[in-house]
């Protein structure tokens, strides 16, 4: 995301850009973060002495739709990256915009879901399910939100014509993070919603 010319990049030991190594390293670390949250959720599953329980409250259809959009957004960001790398500005803007719309929908869906659950009587303080559900999906939602902010930043750079092919890596880094957030949801969705 810097403005300096990447043509001047120093040769690195692996030939990969430093930022690419760094984002993969960070993603590796994040795996342990979500593994701990998911483990906590699973350890506490079914240990509640009071409701609402997952069966009573979780609604699969809306979240399935959100999941599908999030999965598609991973495809869209790949198309956008292809546009950025090949200098196809129209493709870049279109698909990056679509990715952002999907991400925004997912965040919106989660805000709606949380409000609905609170209305139904499930708060973080209600029971272990509430505590571990809001913590797990809330931290995932925070990651999605940060991803959306990141992608919007790259989108604005692209609109201003500052994302030429030699800087496509700026999008690729964000895209790698976006894919990771998506992959984490692929684990959370069955663990929380399908195994309820």
């Amino acid at each position, binding site marked *: *995301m*810097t*403005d*300096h010319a990447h043509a*001047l*990049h*120093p040769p*690195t*030991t*692996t030939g*990969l*850009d*430093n*930022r690419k*190594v*760094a984002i993969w*390293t*960070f993603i*590796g*670390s*994040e*795996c*342990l*973060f979500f593994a*701990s*949250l998911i483990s*906590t959720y699973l*350890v*506490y599953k079914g*240990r*509640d*002495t009071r409701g609402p329980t997952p069966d009573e409250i979780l609604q699969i259809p809306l979240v399935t739709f959100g999941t599908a959009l999030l999965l598609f957004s991973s495809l869209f960001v790949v198309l956008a990256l292809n546009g950025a790398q090949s200098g196809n500005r129209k493709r870049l803007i279109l698909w990056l915009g679509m990715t952002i719309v999907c991400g925004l929908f997912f965040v919106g869906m989660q805000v709606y879901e949380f409000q609905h659950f609170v209305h139904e009587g499930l708060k*973080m*303080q209600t*029971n*272990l399910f*509430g*505590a*571990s559900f809001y*913590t797990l999906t809330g*931290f995932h939602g925070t990651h999605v939100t940060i991803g959306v*902010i990141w992608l919007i*930043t790259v989108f604005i750079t692209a609109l201003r014509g500052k994302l030429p092919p030699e800087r496509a890596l700026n999008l690729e880094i964000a895209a790698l993070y976006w894919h990771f957030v998506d992959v984490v949801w692929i684990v959370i969705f069955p663990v929380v919603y399908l195994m309820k």
Partner: protein
Amino acid sequence: MSTSAVSHPGHVPAAAHAEKTGIWSWITTVDHKRIGVLYGASAFLFFLIGGLEALLLRIQLGSPENTFLSPELYNQLFTMHGTTMIFLGIMPLSAAFFNFFIPLMIGARDVAFPRLNAFSFWVFLLGGLFLNSSFLFGAAPNGGWFGYANLTSRQYSPGLNIDFWVIGLQILGVSSLAAAVNFFTTVVNMRAKGMKLMRMPMFVWMSFITQVLLLLAFPVITVALILLMFDRLFGTMFFTASLGGDPLLWQHLFWIFGHPEVYILILPAFGIVSEILPVFSRKPLFGYAAMVFSGVFIAFLGFGVWSHHMFATGMGPIADTVFALGTMLIAIPTGVKIFNWIGTLAGGSLQMKTPLYFCLGFIAMFIIGGLSGVMHASPPADLQQTDSYFIVAHFHYVMFGGSMFALVAGAYYWWPKMFGRMLSEGLGKVHFWLMLIGFNLTFFPMHFLGLHGMPRRVYTYPAGLGFETMNMIETVGSMILGFSFLVFIYNMIVTARRPADAPADPWNGATLEWSIPSPPQEFNFADEPEVHSRDPLWERKRAHGGPLPEPQRVSGAGIHLPNPSFWPIVTALGVASVFISIMMVHTIGPIGIAAAVLFFFFGVFKWAFEPAG
């Protein structure tokens, strides 16, 4: 964010790099060497605070039924002593050496992300100051460095004490993770030509493994701290047994972090010793590959033995057996290392200088600590020893006898490179003998006290149990230990007043940092080095047929360096604000948190769009 410093052909040469001075130059510095010095200085100050806390504890325990400290204050002091020594002492002292020497040893001009490096330091400093500021409120953390649930719940710890701990450690975690990403990338990607993985200096190897441990262990304690924070601030019940919560989950999460953490503390020390022994034995490190792989093996096993901290919780025979065997297995790669160090010394032409003294002390003390460690790997023995002074003796032999001896050895070894002045050998040896004697007087009797049943973390003991004499000896020993560091500080002051006359290569070193002037110039290497073997500088000297001519200071015109930046410190303030605003949520409300988050993002965006130069 990638602002690695390299010379570009055709880059417009800046004016020759004048040494920048003044406080602003330190606040905005992105030079890994200056950041290393900042880490070293602040960590040493925190270490002295932690040492002072330990001396107060020892005064209290010097005689039975002493009233020098109240039980409440005693709890705060032993908690802060442990937390400080681990997170604000040993870890950042290692980080000081990572910062200063990893780029020099791999032949790089800086780390992969210089600004991120500055950010790590400022977050560390703010986190350390925040933790210690709790003393001003009379509410220092008091739940032990392990913070076991449910002692830490709002119900049993209603004050601010645990809030300071839970927030402070999260701030420090951000610093460690940012630094780990940075140094992992640096070692993977910034090595000089010919510096293959299996040619890296052992300190770089052990530090590299440490970064992997940091990356995989810190997210786990982050989650544990988040759950505890939610319990305390937002009324969740993760660790409330009456509502189905499980206090043991805390112990599992904590020790999945906590055991790798002890290797985070000791592996850099292994690396330092593995650098010093060959230089002062005048022969290459014995069993280089075995040293690398035993380090990797220790780290790998380190993730599978956490429950040996929990034998007393009653996990059942199968879990006990598996974790006991895994723990005993770690003795093998550790033993390999010890034999390799001895093999390095054997037949060498030993140069009895201060760094070697401390390394020999390290080997001897670490063996004692390792042996008592294998003892409580056995669950039946552990059930007798757990929560007694035997455990306190064990981990001080590995943490102080191990890590601190090696870090002090590293300080004497690298001081001339860092500051251009040789520390006094005479004072160094006085420091060594006082430290060795004081250390053993303090901690050796703890083995017996523990086996005789003296419990740890208790502010006093009754007279007549036979604990008096040994406790008195320990208290006297701890004063000698404390005094040895006054000698060290005196040595630093005396040395700082002498002219900077250290040669580039005072010890006949083998690694690249000794090939450049002391202290190094801002750009490290005038020409990027090329490496053909494990001991590149020895190889050069052999080819030259004797000592190399003293390297000259050059102008460095045309070498591209990253610009200084103050956005790292602003962003670090943003990180601290976010966490502190969460702690104060009941006073300032969600608006306060939102404001802090906006401030943080402001720093991030200014940083991201700053022309990197």
